[in-house]
């Protein structure tokens, strides 16, 4: 009897799964079109899954092994099940392999079950809690029905012993297993992540993120430009169907592991943002309905009683953010993001949260004109004065009146173009800039500045969603830069670094940009800088998001500190897991209230290391961390530390550099 029942069950579930898949694909196809090479993507998918995805998953060894066992076992078992029980090819080794696969899967599912016994807060509950049981049901029932097939049990053992009840029970368990694993995969159970995830990897909107046989993938962190000349093109994302189809697919791939939630600084600060919930809200919007079934931890403010789950609802063509009242997501949620990319970095499914958030912000700013708090003022300033503070563009160089910085306009060319950034108006950052100039002069670097011709890089405007102002600033900056000849651009502002290096390219500006820590490390390695030994206390280093996660520069700053004789006492969250200072993405401008401030938490991290000084490499980080009251550590930019430690070259290098040293001393 099982011989007739099993193929029916298997093929019925496969057929249902195909129908489900078609329905799911239709949901994704509501999105806008996007240029994706389908075949190439599908071909690259296994490698993306096995290499890149597992690279992220493997950060948690136990879960990684669990997933290998469970998923690997499942894929093998499912394929073999079709062959052995669906097509009756039970002979030989196939049956034994199927037994081994289902056994492996069972072992994996035991680990899944153990994890689910006392799950951390970041994991979603609800249907996810039944997943280990479903996995076991599938693997055990497959194992059991395969035993007779390989001859371990006599044929007809189950029926033959007359135990119809046992046979029916086995079938029931198998139906449960097939239902969850095959039917549920495309109809929206927890296993949806496998189906959507696989396609998401194949059709990812940033294929360059993935490694190829030729080499590592790049970080691909630059935002994609809007086409402003096309009057018909929507400005940003108003409704779920305004996302591109592969973005919608990406949302559907979410496995609700909550790693994003665990690293999100806004979530930790109690601001109304939970990246996981946001992605799930997008899924809700795509399918239509309310967020009542969401089974993860809510937004912090929901936990505080502010926004209970179930009050927000959306539809594919309904607004995501309502002008008044509630829709799918509240505007506060979108404005809480610091664009630190910690969530993207941690996401095992490679979902692009920040892109989605900025897309939705673009609509709020460009169509609603609803940038909160000081956002509107900052954008107006950027439009009218080319800097966010509304300062006179002619006063950009006032801080350096005594430094006689060479201007590009006079020199026309230089090895290094020093990009000052808007920090030139900030009294604190001017200290860093002075230090950097001193270092450059000490190393006899041929550099020049744009002076008053420089404008804001457009970083803040772009993160606040004002693509029009960003492009206007960027195009004018590119026009200015095109007049001069230089090898590369040096800046002490990672935000400018990122925008100039990664986002101007799409608008026609291609530059070699480097951060001052990278450049100082190079100068030191080239023997052009000499430092006296470090005499201060212990030091820790805070990785700026836009330098580290955005641009992968983790080592150079540490090399510089090492060269200074500093042993860095690392914070628990450092490197690619560094916690944001709270200064990115216009977050200090939109200023969404939370329970605590992000920089306070970061200074708490610093305190835990016992460091007396925290070295930074970003004006935003400096401002945010220095704004912490009763901080345990002093905040210094790397350039300042280097400038303080400069000494003349040892006698062998001759007198020339000593005169430079004297010059450099006059700078400060």
């Amino acid at each position, binding site marked *: 009897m099982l011989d007739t029942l099993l193929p029916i069950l298997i093929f019925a579930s496969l057929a249902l799964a195909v129908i489900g898949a078609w329905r799911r694909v239709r949901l994704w196809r509501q999105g806008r079109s996007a240029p994706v090479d389908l075949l190439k993507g599908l071909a690259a998918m296994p490698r993306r899954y096995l290499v890149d995805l597992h690279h992220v998953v493997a950060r948690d060894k136990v879960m990684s092994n669990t997933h290998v066992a469970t998923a690997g076992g499942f894929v093998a078992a499912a394929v073999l099940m079709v062959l052995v029980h669906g097509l009756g090819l039970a002979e030989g080794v196939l049956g034994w392999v199927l037994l081994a696969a289902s056994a492996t899967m069972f072992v994996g599912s035991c680990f899944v079950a153990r994890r689910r016994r006392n799950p951390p807060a970041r994991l979603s509950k609800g249907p996810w809690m039944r997943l280990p049981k479903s996995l076991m049901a599938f693997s055990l029932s497959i194992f059991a029905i395969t035993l007779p097939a390989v001859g371990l049990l006599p044929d007809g053992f189950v029926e033959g012993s007359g135990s119809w009840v046992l046979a029916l029970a086995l079938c029931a368990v198998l139906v449960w297993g097939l239902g969850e694993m095959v039917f549920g995969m495309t109809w929206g159970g927890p296993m949806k992540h496998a189906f959507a995830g696989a396609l998401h990897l194949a059709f990812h909107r940033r294929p360059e993120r993935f490694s190829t046989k030729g080499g590592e993938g790049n970080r691909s962190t630059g935002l994609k430009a809007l086409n402003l000349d096309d009057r018909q093109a929507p400005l940003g994302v108003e409704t779920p169907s305004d996302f591109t189809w592969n973005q919608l697919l990406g949302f559907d791939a979410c496995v609700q592991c909550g790693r994003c939630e665990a690293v999100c600084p806004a979530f930790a600060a109690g601001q109304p943002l939970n990246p996981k919930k946001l992605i799930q809200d997008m899924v809700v919007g795509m399918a239509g309905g309310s967020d009542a079934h969401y089974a993860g931890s809510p937004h912090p403010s929901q936990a505080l009683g502010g926004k209970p789950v179930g009050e927000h609802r959306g539809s594919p063509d309904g607004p995501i953010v309502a002008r008044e009242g509630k829709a799918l997501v509240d505007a506060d949620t979108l404005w809480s993001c610091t664009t630190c990319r910690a969530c993207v970095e941690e996401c095992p499914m490679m979902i692009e949260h920040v892109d989605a958030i900025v897309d939705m912000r673009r609509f709020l700013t460009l169509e609603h004109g609803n940038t909160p*708090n000081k956002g509107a003022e900052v954008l107006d300033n950027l439009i009218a004065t080319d800097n966010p503070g509304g300062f006179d563009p002619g006063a950009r160089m006032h801080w350096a009146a005594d430094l006689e910085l060479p201007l590009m306009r006079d020199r026309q060319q230089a090895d290094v173009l020093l990009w000052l950034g808007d920090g030139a108006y*900030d*009294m604190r950052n001017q200290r860093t800039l002075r230090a950097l100039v001193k270092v450059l002069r000490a190393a006899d670097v041929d550099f020049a500045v744009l002076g008053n011709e420089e404008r804001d890089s457009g970083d803040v405007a772009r993160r606040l969603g004002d693509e029009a102002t960003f492009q206007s600033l960027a195009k004018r900056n590119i026009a200015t830069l095109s007049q001069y000849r230089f090898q590369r651009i040096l800046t002490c502002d990672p935000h400018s670094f990122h925008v100039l290096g990664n986002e101007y390219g799409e608008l026609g500006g291609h530059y070699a940009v480097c951060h001052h820590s990278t450049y100082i490390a190079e100068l030191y390695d080239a023997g052009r800088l000499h430092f006296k030994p470090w005499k201060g206390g212990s030091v820790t280093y805070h990785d700026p998001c836009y330098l580290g996660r955005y641009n992968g520069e983790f080592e150079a700053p540490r090399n510089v500190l090492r060269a200074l004789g500093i042993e860095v006492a690392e914070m628990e969250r450092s490197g690619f897991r560094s916690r944001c200072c709270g200064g990115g993405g216009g977050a200090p401008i939109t*200023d969404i209230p939370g329970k605590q*401030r992000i920089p306070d938490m970061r200074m708490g991290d610093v305190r835990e290391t016992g460091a007396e000084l925290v070295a930074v490499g970003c004006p935003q980080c400096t*401002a945010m961390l*220095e*704004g912490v009251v009763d901080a345990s550590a002093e905040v210094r930019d790397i350039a300042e530390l280097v400038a303080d430690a400069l000494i003349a070259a040892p006698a062998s290098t001759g007198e020339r550099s000593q005169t430079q040293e004297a010059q450099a001393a006059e700078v400060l």
Partner: protein
Amino acid sequence: MSEILRRDPRKEWIARNRLHPQHLEVLAELGRSAGQGAASEWVGPHGLVRRNPHVVGFMGPNGLKRIDRSGVQQGAGGGRAAKAAAQSKPLVEIESPAFLVTVVPDMAGGRLTGHDRDLLGLARQLADADPAAPGAVLAVIFGDHKEDGFAEAGIDRLLHLDGPEVEGFAPEARLGALVAVENAWTPRHWLIPDSKLGGADLGRRLAARLGERPATGVWQLEASDEADLGWSCTARGAAGSLDIQRPLPRFALALAECAEPVSDTRHAASELTLPQALPARLSRIEDLGQVAVDPAGVALSEAEFILSAGNGVRDWDGFHHAAEVLGATEGASRVAVDDGFMARNRQVGATGTWVTARVYVAVGISGAIQHLQGIQSCDKVVAINMDPGCDMIKRADLAVIGDSAKVLEALVALVEQAREEKRNAA
């Protein structure tokens, strides 16, 4: 009281004789007339100035006596002398003026404002330009007033229009009156303060009604042969970004400090009346009176007096009370805002609001660099702080080291006491 100085030789003698039993009493009595505790200086019986060096000076903060020889300490006591000086200014009377220069002062609070006096100074320039044919300055004032210095301000003729219809905000009635003035005397010049206190509005109404194109935002006047009226003026235009050189028209709305106020002469300030009574008219604008406004609600960027709180403030009730009594707009440092004691729109600094207050009182603010940037354009900064080493103290024009709550309390007491005295005096 008679202005004649009566001398009592006996008292003066006692005042000089320190051993006389009544010495202190008499000294105090003589001193009172000078408005201070005891007289340090008086005219002796032979016309010589007598001094009592013991009452000069004040106790310094260290308990030592300090003598300030700059004259500031004694300057205040010259009530009688000032009055006498006013008396001694030459009286200028213009019997038959060649023309009239009409000024319509704002009279905010019933007194001539500084702006009004500047305008009267300008009016005198116009009137006195040709000594052969001097003009007269006519001031038109509306409603009740408390001013008694019209003569010293340079007014030859005064038209005082009183009545319920011109009280408060009554642009239509006042406009009617000014049109009547124009019809009655046809002044050669009209000068009106270009001020938010009413002049800017009334002046433009008048010019529009009479169909004359006025000069607005005038701040400088020069004699010019080319102009019809013999004067050219410099006026601010385009929201203060342009200077416009043009001939002075009959109507001019002038800015504050357009001229020096009259200080050397006295004028007749003789009352005029309109030849005809004003026609009654129906007003389409009804004044419902001033609305009580909470100074704390004034936008920070507009406020001219800010009391700002920082991390060092513990007694928030006391702080709010102080702001209310002082009539100051409340500000806050970033920390005070982050800690939830103050609203976000109260934050002062580079990341909050850039303020332009004339006086900025920082209470318990250490002075983070962003905060100091935000108060760059404040004229006077007062710091009240426990920590004498903080950056705010370095920026402050006056710094008081001490418990801010107590200092504020004492300040509130002082202000209330001063108000009380003023009320009793009035």
